């Protein structure tokens, strides 16, 4: 790709609590080119959220730096928008859908006409043109997450960070939202960093997949996904190459879980199970 837009260099994060320290992220170095769609996949408890918060400027890394477009990240940058997993807790329940999407734009000091335009376009882009004045809690989970995506899109970020955004929605909705992300990415040319624990999702969505180890986290593999750019739930997921890639990532994740160097007892079957779950659900669904 072109020169890196986002550069993560030697990021380490250690939490110090009452009398004990936990090393969540050991040493992460990677970069994301302008316009890329990169997925980060790792077993549950791999410090994925910690990493994402460090990149978003919400947490300060213990060591290492994050650089966005040449400038060091030391607080939430304007050119970044985050979509969190817990849609129910990331939308303001006291504001309408429109209010939620508009608030960050007010903080950006955009004039009213421009704000209105951005809100309308963003809601239309995520397929929610007719719920402007509804409250988030009146919508289904999938629709709420669409609102959160619309808010991120309207913010016009260079980089869109997504932290397991579809982990809490049902399989059918999830497939729809995955396709929405691919199409928004094509349409807007935004750079996307997508964190997930779902192997299938990472392979289906990404141009590249970064495989993380268990905590304390390092990058085990930086895998290029050589699937065709035009992806559909049915064809892509049933292609032999898709199966190979997901098999490969799956093996890496299994390795990752057993190679948890330290005394960590975080072993869970979650990645494997959810990978199967997604496969089973997605095939007849789409």
């Amino acid at each position: 790709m072109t020169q890196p837009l986002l550069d993560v260099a030697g990021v380490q994060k250690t939490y110090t609590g009452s009398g004990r320290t936990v090393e969540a992220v050991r040493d992460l170095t990677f970069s994301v080119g302008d316009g890329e769609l990169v997925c980060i996949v790792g077993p549950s408890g791999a410090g994925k959220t910690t990493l994402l918060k460090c990149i978003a400027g919400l947490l300060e890394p213990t060591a290492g730096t994050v650089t966005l477009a040449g400038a060091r990240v030391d607080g939430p940058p304007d050119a970044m928008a985050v979509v969190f997993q817990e849609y129910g807790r990331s939308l303001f329940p006291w504001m309408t859908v429109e209010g939620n999407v508009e608030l960050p734009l007010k903080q950006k000091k955009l004039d009213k006409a421009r704000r209105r335009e951005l809100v309308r376009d963003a809601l239309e882009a995520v397929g929610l043109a007719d719920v402007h004045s509804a409250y988030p809690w009146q919508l289904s989970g999938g629709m709420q997450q669409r609102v959160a995506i619309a808010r991120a899109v309207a913010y016009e970020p260079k980089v869109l960070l997504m932290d397991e955004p579809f982990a809490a929605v049902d399989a059918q909705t999830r497939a729809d939202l995955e396709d929405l992300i691919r199409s928004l990415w094509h349409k807007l040319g935004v750079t996307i960093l997508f964190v997930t624990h779902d192997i299938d999702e990472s392979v289906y969505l990404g141009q590249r997949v970064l495989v993380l180890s268990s905590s304390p986290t390092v990058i085990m593999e930086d895998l290029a996904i050589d699937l065709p750019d035009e992806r559909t739930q049915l064809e892509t997921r049933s292609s032999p190459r898709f199966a190979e890639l997901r098999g490969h990532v799956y093996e890496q994740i299994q390795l990752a879980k057993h190679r948890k160097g330290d005394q960590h007892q975080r072993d869970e079957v979650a990645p494997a199970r959810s990978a199967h779950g997604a496969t089973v659900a997605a095939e007849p669904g789409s």
Partner: protein
Amino acid sequence: MRGPVVDPVLRWGRTLGFALTLPVVLVTLWWVWSADSTNYYAPPLQTILTTFGDVWFSERLRADVLPSVTRLAIGYTGAVVLGVGLGVLLGANRTLRRVTEPVLEFFRAIPPPALIPILFLFAGIGDTAKVIVIVSGAVWPVLLNTVEGVRAVDDVLSDTSRSYGVTGLARLRHLVLPAASPQIVAGMRQALSISIILMVISEMFASTNGLGFSVIQFQRSFAIPEMWSGILLLGLLGFVLSLLFQLFERRSLRWYHGLRRSQRGEN
């Protein structure tokens, strides 16, 4: 919100019917039982109601009711503003909270009327003193609830705000205060009844006008029906204020009740 479709007027009428039945029964019983009362201290309700009109729809409305309501309004508003302001500060600052907590607990534990003698010594017996009494008693539920509400602001929502540049005053206005508003409003509801109590007590204690003063004056001069009518008026005042408060609560927390309903799966 579901269930068979009922004509809204009919439903409203039925709600009103339920709400009014018991009061009507009680008033009727009072009326009937007291009708030929010869007890000097418990005159017939009819006498009390006649007196009510004569006493209160007169000069007293301006001379006694208005001062009371004004003290109440200023004292209550002061308590809410002070409680929310301090509550936001303490809720947002752990160190400050830990330093002030024991002192706050102590002051909260003092029954507010017990402060009246001291406050009147320092602030005289004028309106200021009465307002201070109301504030000093009514501020606690607002303050403590605001602290709790501010502390409990959701982490994810907080991160979301930060990442979208909602900081400083905008954070206070769009995140902290709305998030704490259910607790704040609950505190305000308690503060309202405390305010009314303290208004009456402070006026009974030392005053030259006001509702509490009038009731005590009537009692001391054996104007018994007048005294009863004053008590009735205080009851009505409290009732109307509580209705207004419910209206305010329903409006300001519409989102909260909707959210709760949807979480319980009723939406």
